[in-house]
């Protein structure tokens, strides 16, 4: 009892290890060797393809798992393909029952999952038990409900097909749930590849699928490293790729899948700001940081890794923060009193260490918690909570994602400066804002570039609330109604046909003597008519091949100028929805006054009959009215997240949208894209159709007289694919809509990989813009907006 006397003196926590007996039993039952789960059965890989998966805290080998090669990927995708139609045709109630059964079964085995997760990943058992696993269960329950409601709530939509899903090692089972639950609810089947460090809970999940009697092939799990992942994302028979992981790999997947028609969601890296104002509850903000950056060893894509603290309180804040850090306990992940467990792999540890060393070399002051790291641990298992102060935004550690328990801190003077610093990174995943002033909090939240904003809280997640980022943090949302669209497609899309080879501008033979050949159509940039930078013009012929005039030949500098003008027109984005609607109505009114002229151009250049030309004008005017009507009605939601508070899903303008207009139905095409984009507050740079280059010159006169502020709409004429390339490359352009040929669609998607901007392309398929199902609707508004979820807990 010497130990007891010692404990009475020190009042230490001692140790409180969670038992691993049941997990060992489960591993032993499998002989500690696992194959892939395909078509409802486990298929063993060959010995040659096996590799070891380890407990990162001890280095001990837990099991051998298998590397999926081309053959395995093929049979997994084929199995999913065979199962898909039948799965999608089940009544929603039936699909819901399966998801409900999965949720119940995970709940029944929750401790087994939690312990296995902590063993394989190194995260504290407290986190897997009270965080990961309950969220997993909640996700399946929530989506069991969506499966049932799908038919009535998404009647215009259908499943995409087979989804290839690739998930990271930081939240293995949770990311699996985020991927599989919505995919299945929507009638897709899946092939999922967990990360090579952490595949075990996915394999246990495969057993749950068997127990739930899920039809064969609906869920397939293959294991392996990035090479297996690349085989999956590149497979021709999947229609959807969902990836969570690093920005580097996300970019590669974007390039790989460019032009394939695969729907893509990417949830990538982050360098999320944690903004503390001087009127915050300081101690609570410090505790928030513990949940932000010392959660899961900081290996969290949305970790609040950049502390921005108001200058006047910075010293006191840092002092208290260091003191809090000293209380953090780093150690055995299976110990119930541990705050930080093991880094997932020595490779990651080395990376963290390298970045921190470099940060210090660049001048940062380092503080590492005084708490003991566990002794007798293998090298590279544990990393202490670390604070870097004296960091400037120009320092590497202020810009690069460290993905470890490392916080960098900077100071600011004013709310505006806080926003500027918050947005001064390539990423845009999440943000935390700490202040007791609701005016300030709700002012800052919309200004921060992020998909998720937490006010006076951090790292809150829920199945009913979308999660995902902007900028280089990727696109798409997971969770909630917004997340379902990522696994659905509009029914009519399946029937769209590929366009005939582009007709473009025919070479003019001779001038039509009756026409106003001396008219000078220009570009429209920043509310002004401007000449092309190139000084070249191209001839425009009418439908008979006769010269109808000349239009400028746009080049990359014209695009640059147009984007610059759009950037400056940001006040349009903050205008009220009501005033934007008024502008659209006015635009419609003025177009109505000029419709004879527009119809004349359609007749002359495109050879339309008078009636057809008039119809296109009429529909264009109607479309302006349609989106003016939507302006103040396509608004946000308040999600039912399980907090005392509100979670506001705010629909925000994407920003600057580059639009390559379709050649067919040129006027209606322009208006069908311009109207939803600007009514939601975006500014656009449009490459107008070369099938009728003269329309633009009438349009900009209408824009000029309709109170559309300069820079909101910019019109450039020229070679569509050349100009679209410049738009797709441009970092300032947030989103690109491309309606042209397959080649251009491929080019746009590939080029977008650098900036990771959203893309919406047609793969050369032609819509009937006159058909209201195809030519208008909420899907256009969804393309015009980003959903930002703002968590606002309340209570005095």
């Amino acid at each position, binding site marked *: *009892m010497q130990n007891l006397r010692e404990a009475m003196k020190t*009042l230490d926590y*001692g140790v409180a290890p969670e038992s691993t007996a049941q997990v060992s039993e489960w591993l032993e039952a499998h002989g500690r060797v696992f194959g892939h789960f395909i078509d409802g059965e486990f298929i063993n890989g060959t010995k040659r393809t096996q590799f070891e998966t380890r407990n990162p805290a001890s280095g001990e080998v837990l099991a051998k798992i298998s590397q999926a090669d081309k053959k395995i990927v093929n049979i997994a995708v084929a199995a999913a393909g065979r199962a898909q139609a039948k799965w999608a045709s089940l009544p929603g109630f039936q699909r819901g029952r399966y998801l409900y059964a999965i949720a119940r079964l995970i709940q029944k085995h929750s401790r087994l999952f939690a312990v296995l997760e902590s063993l394989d990943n190194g995260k504290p058992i407290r986190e897997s038990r009270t965080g990961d696993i309950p969220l997993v269960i909640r996700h399946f329950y929530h989506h069991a409900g969506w499966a049932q409601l799908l038919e009535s709530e998404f009647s215009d939509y259908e499943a995409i097909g087979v989804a290839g899903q690739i998930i990271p090692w930081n939240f293995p089972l949770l990311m699996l749930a985020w991927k599989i639950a919505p995919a299945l609810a929507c009638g897709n089947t899946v092939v999922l590849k967990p990360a090579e460090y952490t595949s075990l809970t996915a394999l246990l999940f495969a057993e749950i699928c068997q127990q739930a009697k899920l039809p064969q092939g609906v869920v397939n799990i293959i294991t392996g490293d990035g090479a297996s992942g690349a085989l999956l994302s590149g497979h021709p028979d999947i229609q959807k790729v969902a990836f969570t992981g690093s920005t580097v790999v996300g970019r590669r997947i974007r390039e790989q899948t460019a032009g394939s028609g695969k729907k893509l969601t990417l949830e990538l890296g982050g360098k999320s700001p944690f903004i503390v104002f001087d009127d915050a*509850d300081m101690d609570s903000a410090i505790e928030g940081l513990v949940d932000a950056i010392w959660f899961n060893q900081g290996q969290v894509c949305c970790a609040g890794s950049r502390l921005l603290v108001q200058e006047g309180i910075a010293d006191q804040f840092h002092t208290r923060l*260091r*003191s809090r850090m000293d*209380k953090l306990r780093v150690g055995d992940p299976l110990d119930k009193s541990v705050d930080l467990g093991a880094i997932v792999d020595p490779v990651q540890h080395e990376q963290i260490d390298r970045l921190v060393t470099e940060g210090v070399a660049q001048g940062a002051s380092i503080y590492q918690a005084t708490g003991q790291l566990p002794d007798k641990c293998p090298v590279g298992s544990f990393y202490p909570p670390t604070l870097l102060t004296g960091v400037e935004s120009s320092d590497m550690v202020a810009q690069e994602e460290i993905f470890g328990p490392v916080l960098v801190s900077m100071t600011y003077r004013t709310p505006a400066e806080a926003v500027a610093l918050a947005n001064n990174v390539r990423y845009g995943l999440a943000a935390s804002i700490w202040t007791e002033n609701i005016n300030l909090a709700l002012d800052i939240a919309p200004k921060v570039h992020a998909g998720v904003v937490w006010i006076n809280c951090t790292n809150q997640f829920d199945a009913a609330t979308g999660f995902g980022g902007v900028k280089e943090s990727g696109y798409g949302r997971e969770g909630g109604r917004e997340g379902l669209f990522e696994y659905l497609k509009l029914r009519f899309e399946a029937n769209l046909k590929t366009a005939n080879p582009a007709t473009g501008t025919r070479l003019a033979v001779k001038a039509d003597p009756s026409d106003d050949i001396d008219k000078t159509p220009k570009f429209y940039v920043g509310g002004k008519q401007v000449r092309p930078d190139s000084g070249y013009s191209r001839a425009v012929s009418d439908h008979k091949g006769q010269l109808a005039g000349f239009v400028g030949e746009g080049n990359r500098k014209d695009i640059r100028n147009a984007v610059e003008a759009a950037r400056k027109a940001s006040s349009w984005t903050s205008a009220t929805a009501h005033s934007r609607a008024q502008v659209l109505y006015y635009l419609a009114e003025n177009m109505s006054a000029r419709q004879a002229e527009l119809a004349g151009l359609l007749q002359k250049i495109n050879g339309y009959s008078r009636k057809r030309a008039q119809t296109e004008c009429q529909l264009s005017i109607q479309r302006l009215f349609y989106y003016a009507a939507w302006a103040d009605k396509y608004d946000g939601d308040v999600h039912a997240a399980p*907090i005392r508070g509100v979670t506001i899903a705010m629909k925000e303008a994407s920003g600057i949208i580059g639009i390559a207009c379709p050649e067919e139905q040129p006027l209606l095409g322009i208006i069908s894209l311009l109207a939803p984009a600007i009514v939601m507050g975006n500014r656009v740079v449009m490459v107008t159709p070369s099938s009728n280059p003269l329309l633009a010159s009438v349009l900009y006169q209408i824009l000029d007289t309709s109170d559309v502020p300069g820079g909101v709409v910019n019109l450039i004429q020229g070679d569509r694919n050349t100009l679209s390339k410049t738009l797709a490359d441009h970092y300032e352009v947030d989103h690109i809509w491309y309606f042209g040929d397959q080649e251009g669609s491929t080019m746009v998607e590939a080029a977008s990989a650098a900036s990771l901007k959203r893309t919406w392309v047609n793969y050369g398929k032609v819509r009937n813009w006159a058909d209201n199902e195809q030519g208008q609707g909420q899907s256009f508004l969804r393309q015009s907006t980003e959903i930002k979820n703002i968590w606002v807990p309340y*209570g005095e």
Partner: protein
Amino acid sequence: MDASLIMVADKTNERNAGMDFNPDWLAKVQINRSAIERRAGSLGDRRSIKKHWQVAWLLQAISCIDLTTLAGDDTPGRVRRLCNKAMNPVRREILSSLDLEDLELSTGAVCVYHGMLETANQILARSRGQNARPVGLAAVSAGFPAGLNALPLRIAEIDASVAAGATEIDIVISRRHALSGNWRALYDEVRSFREASGEAHLKTILATGELGTLRNVAKASIVCMMAGADFIKTSTGKESVNATLAVSLVMVRCIRSYFEDTGYRIGFKPAGGISTAKDALNWLVLMKEELGVEWMQPELFRFGASSLLGDIERQLEHAATGIYSASYRNPMG
């Protein structure tokens, strides 16, 4: 407490002298209820104390109990039993099984109404020789539990209790001052109680269940410390909401803040509704995490409780024997 936190001279062994009323400090108080509740709610998940460490912590908890009876039907007989339990809180056989026969364990104090002081004092006098640390004698005072008697009467009550041998005075604050934002009046009142207490230690009961907001709890905590309180205490045990971890978190963070600014260490006493060994461990975790081991000692931490000791004693028997205990096996207090 981490040395880096100390911004002024540490006055570890000095009694809080208080300070002038400082309204600026109150104006700066910010409390975010949701964040406080989140932290308070996760404390129990973050720390788990098992095996012999748990035994050590539970024994420590006993030494921090103000064993309390505050009922209208208290009699000298009832109080004698309570005091004897306070001096012998754990059955001898249990301590023997734990190899701790030599442990001189007692509760921190007993806590009674003024009318019971004489009886209690007679019994506890024995502890001054018997127990390593004499059992304190706390009297609730100043018009407990409503605190609405005339101020001279409340002060006179303190004087009388000190004269009757109380070493600790637990007073209630005037909630009306807090609820109407009259912090100066609260300060003056507590100052006068502190003066009346003399050598006896002053515990100020905020009756947090009646203060409406956590912000008021924080402000009242700071005002009491400014006015010279030795302890701040959550509840009388008579409000409909007693001690909660959230309220306690707010109060201990105020203690930390006062320590940072003045160097004085103020004690904390949660009271009311704390009845299980698991509760006791949670509160001790709170003290260790937010303030440090020094604040887990009876000099700076007390539980106001009546039934807590019984549950702890059962848990100790289980720890000693491996067999679940029953309440009748241990002498009642």
